């Protein structure tokens, strides 16, 4: 069991390494290094550039050295919580990011919980009442949920809130808490505002999860042991809870792998639309102004979020499902 976890952790580290190479390539894609862009921009505003600062930055990030070396400098810096320098804000990236990372994590995590809590009862109901009117209705809603891109859903909600309540539902907390230190009142205010983006981001994930749970449960319900149980006179509820439901729960954990990237993606664009104080809008503005180090660290963070999430799902799955655990042991 432990060796399985160690192996999984090793794979996770390697994956992050590969992703860091990918992100570094993306950072380097725009023509010219970022200092030339920076100097260019300052010149166009008629400001003078302090040559000392340029020289310092050049040395700091080793821009005169070959690309491979630059990559290792960047990677080494990241491992020591030094993510580079944001030119838009004229601050180190770690200072700019602040607690946006935490809010992003809270948002994504809550959305995952929301997806589970909503899709579980609906999926079970829809499978046990196959081809009933409510089942068809749920399927139709599910299709709509899958087809409506979440940023459009966000727009619709913003629009409705604007005409019905005359207010904006953007943001993650009351305006009075912005830039305030954390307190209970602030946390509560975040919780109050959180549900709108959570629903918006979670809709398509929920729709997908309901479909999978329904399909899985239907497969299980047709198996012989269920028929045997029914023939022996087990009550329907017990028959459902005893085995089929437990078996069909596997995708809840196994599918974190496909659910998480989807949610993280959705969170980025929905927060940009609803201007939430999470990583999304800042990633967008960093990309638009080609502030590539800032963008790069956001990309790394989002990737880390999904990769760690998958690791956790693998660990949970191994604990819950002996088949996976044993296979890991045999392979060793």
């Amino acid at each position: 069991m432990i060796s399985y976890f160690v192996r999984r952790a090793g794979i996770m580290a390697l994956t992050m390494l590969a992703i860091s190479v990918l992100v570094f390539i993306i950072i380097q894609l725009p023509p010219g290094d970022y200092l030339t862009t920076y100097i260019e921009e300052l010149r166009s505003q008629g400001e003078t550039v302090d040559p000392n600062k340029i020289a310092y930055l050049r040395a700091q990030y080793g821009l005169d050295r070959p690309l491979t070396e630059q990559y290792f400098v960047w990677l080494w810096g990241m491992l020591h919580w030094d993510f580079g320098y944001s030119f838009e804000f004229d601050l180190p990236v770690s200072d700019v990011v602040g607690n946006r990372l935490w809010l992003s994590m809270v948002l994504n995590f809550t959305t995952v919980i929301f997806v589970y809590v909503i899709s579980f009862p609906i999926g079970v109901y829809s499978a046990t009442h196959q081809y009933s009117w409510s089942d068809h209705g749920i399927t139709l809603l599910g299709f709509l949920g899958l087809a409506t891109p979440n940023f459009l859903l966000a727009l619709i909600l913003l629009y409705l809130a604007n005409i019905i309540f005359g207010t904006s539902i953007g943001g993650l907390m009351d305006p009075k808490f912005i830039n305030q230190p954390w307190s209970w009142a602030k946390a509560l205010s975040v919780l109050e505002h959180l549900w709108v983006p959570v629903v918006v981001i979670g809709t398509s994930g929920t729709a997908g999860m309901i479909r999978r749970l329904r399909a899985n449960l239907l497969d299980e319900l047709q198996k012989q042991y269920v028929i045997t149980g029914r023939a022996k006179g087990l009550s329907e509820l017990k028959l459902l809870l005893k085995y089929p439901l437990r078996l069909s729960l596997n995708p809840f954990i196994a599918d974190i792998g496909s659910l998480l990237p989807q949610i993280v993606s959705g969170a980025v664009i929905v927060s940009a639309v609803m201007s939430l104080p999470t990583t999304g809008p800042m990633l967008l503005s960093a990309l638009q102004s080609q502030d590539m180090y800032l963008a790069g660290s956001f990309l790394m963070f989002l990737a880390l979020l999904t990769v760690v999430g998958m690791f956790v799902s693998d660990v949970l799955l191994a604990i819950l499902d002996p088949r996976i655990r044993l296979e890991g042991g045999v392979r060793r």
Partner: protein
Amino acid sequence: MSKPLQHYISSAPFNPVDDEALTPEQERYYLASQWKMMWWRFKKHKLAVIAGIVLFLSYSTIFLTEILAPYNLHSRNSDFIYAPPQSIRFFHNGQFEGPFVYGLKYRLNMDTLKREYTDDLTKVEKIRFFCSGDSYKFWGMFRANVHLVCPSKNGTLFILGTDRLGRDMASRLLYGGRISLTIGLIGITISFLLGISIGGLAGYFGGWIDNVVQRVIEILRSLPELPLWMALSAALPANWSPIWIYFGITIILGLLDWPGLARAVRSKLLALREEDYAVAARLMGARPSHIIARHLLPNFMSHLIASATLSVPAMILGETALSFLGLGLRPPVTSWGVLLAEAQNIEAVALYPWLLLPMLPVIVTVLAFNFLGDGLRDAADPYH
């Protein structure tokens, strides 16, 4: 005493294989080709057929956009900024007039600064058909000015309203469809080619190639797609011409989408390459590319087409999202995402809700592709 029952003897000639003879219907079924059976199976899926028709119709508008749209993409009507949709009527004062719209009366509400338009019930503006209107260059080739519908002379025809520059939304939606609908197809072609060749390599050769490909697929699938798309398209040089940006975006969309297809190809090939006919072909000295393309691929081509259909919507949505955020296509190129970018100003949308209309074609197209893909997937395996 009764007579013994007479033994019945049929005088018809006896044919011993009569029993095994097939009815014409059965014969038709057994002799049908694989594709014909898929078509039968597909036809049973009503929703998929409807979705197919919807998609066929919307894709055929691409060829005739200039004629179908009442106005040009960029024609501004500066007197009618943010005009609401005009409804088409048939009866004026209880008398049949044929299709017409009432003229618009404009007033600026000085309290709210909202532009208010009301129907001018005295002005009946009859819609003209097959008429001459805005002059355009058909597919950039020759000049013409024929339109399917036009407003009456000196009148207006804004079926879906106008935007902040007084441009007709309906026409812009039609022109936007040209970009949005094709971008998915080109993107899926790229991802299809990548998926088949990479998945084919991994599945046929196995070994370390397979291992490397598997790892790469795992890494790509664990990445959140949209942020990567955003980063890549932000890296496109700003001085590229719109047409290059268009191709750049399609390539970016295709580059991240192939892992799913490659995985499907790989697992099928792994199973099929051990089949007798594949071994026979190998023993006769066929090259791997020949075996894959000639003997193995046709086995699951239908599956691939079905799953490709299912991933077109992701591409269309990707382009819409990127353009909406201002990282994808940029005006003057107009896609549904570019049109939606105007709806980002939520105050404007609250006053002029028809700016949200480009959502409808996006959602309809995505739904239609999903239904069509579902139908194709069921039909792909007609022997079950």
